[in-house]
């Protein structure tokens, strides 16, 4: 009986963490993701040197001559390319998701908060961006302004934000009518304060989930661009390994399948974590 007195109110964070912990798939995804991050950070120290250097005869099959994943058509060590590519994929993925979310939140928050003409204009603007096929649009940006990693990141962000803007706007439309917002307004909080301090924190959960998924999409996006050869040619990336080796699938299919597995596993892990966050941050959804 004395147990009952020990029950304390838990913080929402602790509750969300508990929810997340119970989702085994999400925890597994998180573990895999952390491993990949560790490889991306520590890998270049364990595998120093330029991954573009020729180390052995081209098309050495995996496991032979000490090359765990074999060599590609230029005799480069695929494992080394993958390890160095991990950093690029993750960095571009995170940075592009950040750009996406920043633009998306700004547009969505302004549209949802101010309503009226501003909302109309911003949503038309959003619809316009949804009409342009994302990959083609980013290809055009990269083609016109150069294929540096920074430009690729900006390009991915510029074409991906509409989804975030829509979610943010929907949340703002819902929350701005709630009593605590009216109360804050009556209490003299200015518009800027209402947007950033009152509404935005409460609108964040679905945006966080979307942001997590955006990292996955951005990684896929970067892989697609570098598969097409639209990337910095001096930086190893996963899509680029596949793109440059794809003419040799008859002789050495592992040069293409293995890097694909790396992309697949990373994005899968991110999406499992995203699902877990979704369940953890929207407990109401879970009860359905």
């Amino acid at each position, binding site marked *: 009986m004395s147990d009952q007195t020990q029950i304390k109110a838990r913080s929402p964070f602790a509750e969300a963490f508990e929810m997340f912990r119970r989702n085994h798939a999400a925890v597994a995804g998180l573990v895999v993701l952390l491993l990949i991050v560790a490889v991306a950070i520590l890998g270049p120290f364990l595998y120093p040197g330029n991954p573009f250097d020729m180390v052995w005869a081209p098309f050495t099959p995996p496991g032979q001559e000490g090359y765990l994943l074999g060599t590609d058509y230029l005799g480069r060590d695929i494992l080394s390319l993958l390890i160095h590519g991990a950093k690029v994929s993750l960095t571009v993925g995170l940075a592009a998701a950040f750009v996406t979310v920043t633009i998306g939140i700004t547009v969505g928050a302004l549209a949802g908060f101010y309503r009226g003409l501003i909302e109309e204009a911003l949503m038309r603007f959003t619809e316009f961006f949804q009409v342009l096929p994302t*990959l083609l649009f980013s290809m055009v940006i990269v083609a016109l302004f150069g294929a540096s990693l920074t430009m690729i990141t900006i390009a991915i962000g510029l074409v991906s934000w509409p989804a975030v803007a829509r979610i943010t706007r929907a949340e703002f439309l819902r929350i701005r009518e709630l009593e605590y917002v009216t109360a804050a307004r009556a209490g003299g909080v200015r518009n800027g304060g209402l947007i950033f301090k009152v509404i935005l924190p409460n609108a964040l959960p679905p945006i966080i989930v979307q942001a997590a998924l955006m990292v996955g999409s951005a990684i896929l996006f970067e892989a697609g661009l570098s598969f097409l050869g639209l990337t910095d040619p001096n930086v190893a990336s996963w899509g680029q390994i596949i793109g440059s080796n794809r003419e040799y699938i008859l002789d050495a299919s592992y040069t293409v399948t293995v890097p694909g597995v790396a992309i697949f596993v990373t994005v899968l892990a991110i999406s499992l974590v995203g699902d877990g966050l979704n369940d953890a941050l929207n407990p109401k959804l879970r009860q359905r």
Partner: protein
Amino acid sequence: MAFLKVLVQRIGYAVLLLIAVLVLNFTMINLAPGDVVDTIAADMGGANAELMAQIRAEYGLDQPVIVQLGSYIGRVLQFDLGYSYFYNRPVTELIFERLPATLLLVFSAQIFALVLGILLGVFAAQNPNGPLSHLVTLFALFGYAAPVFWTGILLLIAFSLKIPLFPVAGMRDVTIEGGFFPQALSVAHHLVLPMLTLGSIFIALYSRLCRASMLEVLGSDYVRTAKAKGLRPRDVVMKHALKNALPPVVTLAGLQFSAVISGAVLVETVFSWPGLGQLALTSILARDTPTILGILFFSALVVIVGNLLTDLVLRMIDPRVRGRG
């Protein structure tokens, strides 16, 4: 009549969107370093400042920006998207040559994904925790996480190289002679793998939504009524439930056109499918700006037309949309 009014409104809005695409195109050309004249000069092996100024005047590049924008839009309205210095042909000609291949791929992948996605969703909803439901969930995860070009290469290795069921590349067998039917058959044969590849992303999406939508509808009162009056279970599912579960799936499919075209660019590259995506890639690598921007314009046009078609389909299957006018 209400329908006609809506249609006119939609088309008017579509035209505005397209003009916005042109403005964007124009802005990008002007923001990008270098212009057409630099390209021409580079092709000629260099030119002096006087000659370059002369060429600039010829192309109207010495005019104020707003005049240039006006004449650009004016030319596009007359189906003149400029001239490709790389292919030495008008851009519209290049695009019309490649457009049918892309349209075929995009629409067949969409229809294939919709049909299979809906079927999977309907059957999975019969048993929310059954094996098919788990398969749909797994499939959805796979469809999201697998890079589409990788899926394509895997299918290529499996079904053209290891088991030679389908051709490796291209759109038709040039050695085939004869009338329409054998030609069409050859194209269909070449289409199978690209369509499967491109469709795979979207089957996942549609089947998951269709399952959720069916589950919601199956729990409603009128479905219970239909069951209670003794209709066959199959009729309840297909005639009463599916009809009401379908509109959200179709709406989602309509929103995916731009994603399907993006995927098509990668799929075309993998299977050497002679469409707009391939043209886009070669012209980007050749720095052929007029062609690239022409393709962006036409792909936006395809998305807009796709959205209009989705609207029409929604009107056919959902009387509530019709009522709204």
